[in-house]
């Protein structure tokens, strides 16, 4: 890549040129550079190899609060765009881009569909939805009778599963979300609109100033 980038960056596997990444995403060049600072911090937290592995990803998301869990696994899988078992910088930026307030709706729809399709069959199946509902109830320490959960699922599938085949396909998901736009709220992180000011200050060092413009 450009010889004016510091050598430290060249050592990072999967380091992509910020200008390229900025052109492909809703982030500006300096925002991509700010994300690189965050990326460096996360990717070196357990193993200093320039990549984010599953444990480092979980640590960054949940700090010490959570062990292995349903969504962390699925999120990691989706962030690992090239499916090589670890998230590189390009994967990181492109995946976070989906959560940018300015990212296209289509990308958010696709990500959320893949997120909820836990076993990757291409359909969001009833048993998957049930699994995710139960995960939430456990988090709230809440006991809902199985019967009540089934009623919630029935109602959801009556709304969403138009061909009544017991699963939600991509078309049905698009249609369902169009009628319930608040479902995509989790797919937007307002933080991302102005990363250079929202990132924790400990991550910032003078390296950002050292970079050529």
């Amino acid at each position, binding site marked *: 890549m450009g010889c004016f980038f510091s050598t430290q960056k060249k050592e990072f596997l999967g380091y992509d040129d910020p200008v390229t990444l900025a052109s492909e995403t809703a982030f500006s060049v300096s925002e991509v550079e700010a994300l690189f600072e965050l990326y460096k911090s996360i990717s070196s937290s357990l193993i200093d190899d320039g990549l984010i592995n599953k444990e480092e990803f979980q640590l960054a998301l*949940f700090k*010490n609060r959570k062990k292995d869990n*349903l*969504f962390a696994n699925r999120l990691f899988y989706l962030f690992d765009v090239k499916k090589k078992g670890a998230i590189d910088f390009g994967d990181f930026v492109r995946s976070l881009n989906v959560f940018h307030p300015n990212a296209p709706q289509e990308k958010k729809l696709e990500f959320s569909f893949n997120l909820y399709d836990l076993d990757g069959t291409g359909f969001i199946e009833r048993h998957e939805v049930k699994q995710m509902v139960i995960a939430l109830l456990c*988090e709230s320490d809440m006991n809902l009778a199985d019967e*009540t959960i089934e009623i*919630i699922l029935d109602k959801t599938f009556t709304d969403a599963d138009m061909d009544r085949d017991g699963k939600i396909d991509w078309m049905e998901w698009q249609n369902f979300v169009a009628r319930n736009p608040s479902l995509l709220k*989790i797919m937007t992180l307002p*933080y991302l609109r102005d990363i250079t000011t929202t990132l924790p200050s400990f991550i910032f060092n003078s390296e950002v100033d050292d970079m050529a413009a």
Partner: protein
Amino acid sequence: MDAERTVPTSSNFINAFQLIAMNNDLDLSGLFEEEDDNIQKTKLGSKNTISDTFKKIEAAANDLSLSIQRQNNKIKIHPGRSFARCSRSHSNLSAEVIEVAPAHCVVEICKSAGELSVYKEFCKSLSSLLTEKSSIASVAPDAADLSDESQETASSEEEVNGSKDPRGYSSS
């Protein structure tokens, strides 16, 4: 029907995906936040209707001499005068109620500033009120649940007079 509201109005059963979206594991903002003891969140289950759940939140706040301010499905909780000794007077504690099924709600208690002890006491107080079967609680408003519905209007008068009386019943 307002699609933006997370609380269903016509139907009491929440949509499964709205429920799933409440899961903290889906909140990526953790990537951008330092470990901050200031921010605490708890979810509690409530086997009550939405209005009874609100009553219990109010009761829990009253028990700790906290004042409340309700905005739609969210209650903001402020320290009362007894907590004036805190050097940091700014406190940001709230409880949001989301109806999941006709007599089931999830209460999300969130603290973004203020004393940890207040937050913990409030969670504890609310948790025990929520898990109580009958309502022999320390605060009179729950006493209304013991009597049958025809006596509810009479009990509400007692609430006004007898709210500090742990025995709940005042003769009227």
